[in-house]
């Protein structure tokens, strides 16, 4: 059973054993507007929690997507190259960005649960 968590930077994190799938939340895609380009990391790259992992661009501006936990990039969503609008259409499903192998599972405990994330995004 997958476990869905969130970050304060509006990323969702689906935990599946020692790997996670990461994307931006429906709230984030709504704030961004139409996504026109996504820059994804190379498979094999090591990412550090809180540091830039990907870039998502709307018509008006580029936004950074941060690694929610430290790990190694296992897979990236190549669909987004030709169909960046998938992020708007299905942010929490087909619009996923990256799958990571988690190096420090303790970092998963620090992620927000659904209630905490909802409180955060409702407060905006």
């Amino acid at each position: 059973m997958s476990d869905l968590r969130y970050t304060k930077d509006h990323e969702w994190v689906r935990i599946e054993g020692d790997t996670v799938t990461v994307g931006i939340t429906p709230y984030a895609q709504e704030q961004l507007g139409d996504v026109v380009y996504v820059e994804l990391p190379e498979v094999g790259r090591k990412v550090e929690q809180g540091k830039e992992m990907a870039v998502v661009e709307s018509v008006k501006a580029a936004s950074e997507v941060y690694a929610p936990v430290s790990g190694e990039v296992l897979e990236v969503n190549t669909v987004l190259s030709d169909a960046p609008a998938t992020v708007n259409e299905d942010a929490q499903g087909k619009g996923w960005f990256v799958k990571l192998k988690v190096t420090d599972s303790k970092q998963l405990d620090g992620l927000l649960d659904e209630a905490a994330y909802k409180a955060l995004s409702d407060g905006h």
Partner: protein
Amino acid sequence: MDPITESLSRTPLHDLHVELGAKMVPFAGYEMPVNYPAGILTEHLHCRAAAGLFDVSHMGQVRLQAESHAAVAGALERLCPADFVGLQPGRQRYSFFTDTQGGILDDLMVSRLVDDRRGDHLFMVVNAACKVQDLSHLRANLNHRCEITELADRALLALQGPLAGAVMARLAPESAAMTFMTAGHLRIGGIECIATRSGYTGEDGFEISVAADQATELARLLLAQEEVKPIGLGARDSLRLEAGLCLYGNDITAATTPVEADLSWAIAKRRREQGGFPGAGQLQRQWQEGTARKRVGILPEGKAPARAHTEIADSSGQVIGEITSGGFGPSVNGPIAMGYVATTQAAAGTSVQLLVRGKALPAKVVALPFVPHRYRRG
């Protein structure tokens, strides 16, 4: 109330934007709609397919008048390198204020109107971000030569797109006779307006000045036409960038001359030769000797947009220029940009590199516009 929005001005259409679900953002000291629920991409594409209505009331509107057309036009020619003396009634020209170095202080549109109430006068539209300085500039230089009236009680709407003409012809039949860059008084649904057939999208369309207290009524009338949808400033920017049109503050500034900016076409031959405007000597030198840099279109070859301030390098990695406007063009379905490069590298087809997030992305210098203009000529 949020302290930031407390000091922002509102246009007469503010409440309408909120009613339509606009996302409001600060722009040039005003709360403006960046997009409506449809979103920037949809709004942009709708404008090029049908007709879009923009609120541009934040821009400055000014009336200039003197004892005769020759007098007011001659006065304005002291500040702008255009032929205003030769401007016929009902016609409009694009120009700019230059400074003593030949740099551009603001770009603007000037129309000559003759009507029963006011007589023969000039009607000017200037950028929102510059309107305070522009009024000061006019007053400091021309106060004793002409009457300068800021039309602060008027709104400005733009109706743009291939079906804008049909909409206007239905509501104001006299508009059908107007061609690109003409101006006149129209009654639209019974509402008195000053209209010009021009705009900032590359499409056919009109800019419509109306009394502030009739602006909402006019906007609702236009939005009730089935071709028309509301469009925000986000799509206004992507439309004008595709059309190769400059944004003051980005593509043209006091640090760029009209010659460098490839806007010499807006300077009449008589003015080139005779000068009589600030910076004329500098521009004459540039026409004589050429300029070190030139404004060009830049087309990234990949999918990544390159935004303002991105460095442009030649194929050896040497920096040769900078992007001044860049983003995504919905009608070309890819990234587009405008910037300045060394004149030696400015030929269309020249390969360049764009330094984006530490990577050198391939691009080409291209001629502007990215989308052909579809103005309604005679």
